[in-house]
């Protein structure tokens, strides 16, 4: 859950503070600390908008543009999701982030027996382009960018997004989509993987290559330290894992003879905000700097914009609690503050009821309002990187940088990220961190308000988003109707073409777009990959 360890004496005075990343905090910082750690304002900070971007990606920070708000949204059938999209946009949300149900994420059609009980539950059910046509009805594709939270079959969803935009009359060059598309992170932390490591990484490479050539405004991959942190990793490990994963994808595409300079500028990140405020702020500042330095030194990247660590810094769900759920409203506001002080370009918050289920409209709106209050009322847009030059923050940023590098070296010692995932070494490390933290919480070495301290008082029941069993029926009926109405011979022909393309290790994206246009289903397209690639066998961890 992410709180520092505090060692106190019998009078409740703090003797020692240790952050999750393993950094000890002093009671007082002054200029000597900056000297001792070798802080140099010119090389460690630079100007906002200039290398190494510690302070900000843009010279004017939030003055030139407030952050993009992009709440994770989707449930039930495409009809319910479309209504919620419009509701959020009408309340000022500036981008979409689509939640898919588990069958869709796992590449199963709604009428697959394995989908039973899960249709439309944790996100929207999507079987074919017909569902996207409903979900994205009246969404201005040229103005609203869309995150697609899908990984194992992100190729399919990116193709479908292009197909639906074109169907609505938007040129593919105008659309902005960010499929999450980070399969190695799924294998470490979120679990929605399908194919073995090697073809799975190749599919990520295919989307990057395709977006580079065909979709100039799309960001083909969003590397997620977020879920690795949710699974138990420390903040330093979160960034280290994200960077080592990013290197794996860069190298997959570079091995195709493509210069990283031509695509790394399209990478984005999804990073987590919860736990100690200062550690979070230092983490983001250090990460921006390290990413730029690493791209420059390891891949010779030159163009300024290609060195940007862009992305969503979002409030972490595992920081929220089921106990005293209204406390989560307050917690999330502080997480949003950390994101703003850390220079988040895009942001989102988990809603206060998300420890129970997906948010009600009221809870989702409260999250959006929290973000809007910070930008509009509190003064976070006033000046760039307001904590710069602080003895404490600059020392901590340098220390975080060193910790992240140390964790990256540990992953390299496991044989690099692909090997660390295939062997299970990184999964076990993250699980151990989660276990240690849970023990600290149960021993009360780490405090979580309302959970292991200040637990007295009412425990109000929250109003819950209700799952409607009839969504499954509606979705399955609509799928059956689609199968009757579409040109099945065309679909079969295209699926065969897809199979051959996958077998020949040729980029699958162009054929997937054709398949989507012909209303091939998610289960059929993913099924082709299952047949060609097989499924991943998780390493035995224990």
């Amino acid at each position, binding site marked *: 859950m992410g709180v520092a360890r505090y060692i106190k004496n019998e009078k409740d005075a703090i003797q020692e503070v240790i952050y999750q990343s393993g950094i000890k905090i002093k009671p007082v910082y002054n200029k000597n600390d900056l000297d001792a750690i070798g802080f140099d304002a010119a090389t460690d900070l630079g100007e906002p908008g200039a290398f190494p971007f510690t302070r900000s990606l843009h010279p004017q920070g939030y003055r030139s543009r407030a952050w993009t708000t992009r709440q994770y949204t989707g449930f039930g059938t495409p009809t319910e999701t479309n209504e919620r999209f419009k509701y959020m946009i009408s309340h000022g949300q500036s981008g979409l982030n689509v939640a898919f149900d*588990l069958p869709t994420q796992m590449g*199963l059609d709604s009428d697959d027996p394995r989908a039973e*009980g*899960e249709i439309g539950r944790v996100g929207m059910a999507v079987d074919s382009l017909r569902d996207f046509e409903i979900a994205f009805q009246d969404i201005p594709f040229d103005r609203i960018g869309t995150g697609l939270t899908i990984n194992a079959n992100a190729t399919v969803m990116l193709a479908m997004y292009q197909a639906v935009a074109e169907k609505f009359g938007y040129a593919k060059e105008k659309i902005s989509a960010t499929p999450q598309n980070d399969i190695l992170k799924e294998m470490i*932390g979120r679990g929605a993987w399908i194919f073995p490591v090697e073809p799975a990484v190749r599919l990520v490479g295919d989307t990057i290559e395709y977006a580079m050539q065909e979709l100039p405004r799309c960001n083909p991959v969003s590397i997620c330290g977020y879920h690795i942190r949710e699974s138990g990793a420390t903040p330093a490990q979160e960034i280290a894992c994200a960077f080592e994963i990013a290197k794996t994808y860069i190298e997959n595409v570079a091995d195709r003879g493509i210069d990283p300079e031509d695509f790394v500028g399209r990478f984005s990140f999804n990073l987590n905000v919860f736990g100690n405020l200062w550690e979070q702020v230092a983490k983001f500042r250090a990460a921006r700097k390290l990413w730029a330095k690493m791209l420059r030194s390891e891949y010779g990247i030159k163009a300024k914009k290609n060195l940007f660590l862009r992305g969503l810094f979002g409030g972490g769900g595992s920081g929220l609690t089921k106990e005293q759920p209204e406390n989560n409203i307050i917690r999330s506001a502080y997480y949003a503050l950390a994101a703003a002080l850390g220079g988040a370009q895009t942001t989102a918050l988990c809603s206060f009821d998300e420890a129970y289920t997906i948010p009600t409209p009221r809870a989702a709106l409260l999250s959006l309002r929290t973000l809007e209050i910070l930008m509009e009322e509190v003064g976070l847009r006033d000046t760039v990187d307001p904590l710069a030059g602080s003895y404490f923050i600059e020392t901590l940023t340098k220390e975080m940088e060193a910790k992240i590098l140390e964790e990256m070296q540990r992953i390299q010692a496991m044989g690099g990220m692909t090997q660390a995932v295939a062997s299970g070494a990184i999964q076990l490390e993250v699980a151990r961190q989660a276990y240690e933290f849970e023990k600290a919480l149960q021993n009360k070495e780490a405090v979580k308000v309302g*959970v292991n301290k200040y637990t007295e008082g009412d425990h109000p029941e929250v109003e819950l988003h209700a799952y409607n069993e009839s969504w499954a029926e509606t979705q399955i009926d609509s799928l059956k109707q689609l199968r009757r109405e579409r040109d099945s011979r065309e679909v079969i022909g295209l699926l065969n073409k897809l199979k051959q393309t996958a077998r020949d290790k040729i980029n699958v994206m162009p054929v997937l777009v054709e398949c989507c246009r012909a209303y091939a289903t998610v289960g059929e397209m993913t099924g082709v990959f299952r047949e060609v690639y097989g499924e991943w066998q998780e390493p035995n961890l*224990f």
Partner: protein
Amino acid sequence: MTTPKKIRILIAKPDLDGHDRGAKVIALALRDAGMEVIYSGLHQSLDQIVNTATQESVDLIGLSIMTGAHLQICRRLLGRLKSDALDHVRVVVGGVIPKDDIQPLIDMGTAGVFPGGTPFEEIIDAISALF
């Protein structure tokens, strides 16, 4: 002096849910408490769970479910164990479980319900008391 037989447990992640932090954490905690723990890995069908439980001769299956599908999954697993004459294998469940669902789970034959945040000690005691 005979040592009591170690309780053998299969921690299982049924169906499509990929949130395995809780499953791994409780696997480590039960192992530290001296139980023999097998972890199924993700995306297990009920067939796979029942097969592993049989092959490993476990005393108990601990399901970890975060998606809200706990009522359906527990009902299906308990039914399946009964029809396969495996109802000596006890079933407990943990995860995101609303208060209102606890009694229905117990009524259908679940031997323990542990919503997220239940202390390790409570889970260990409850499981030990079953054998």
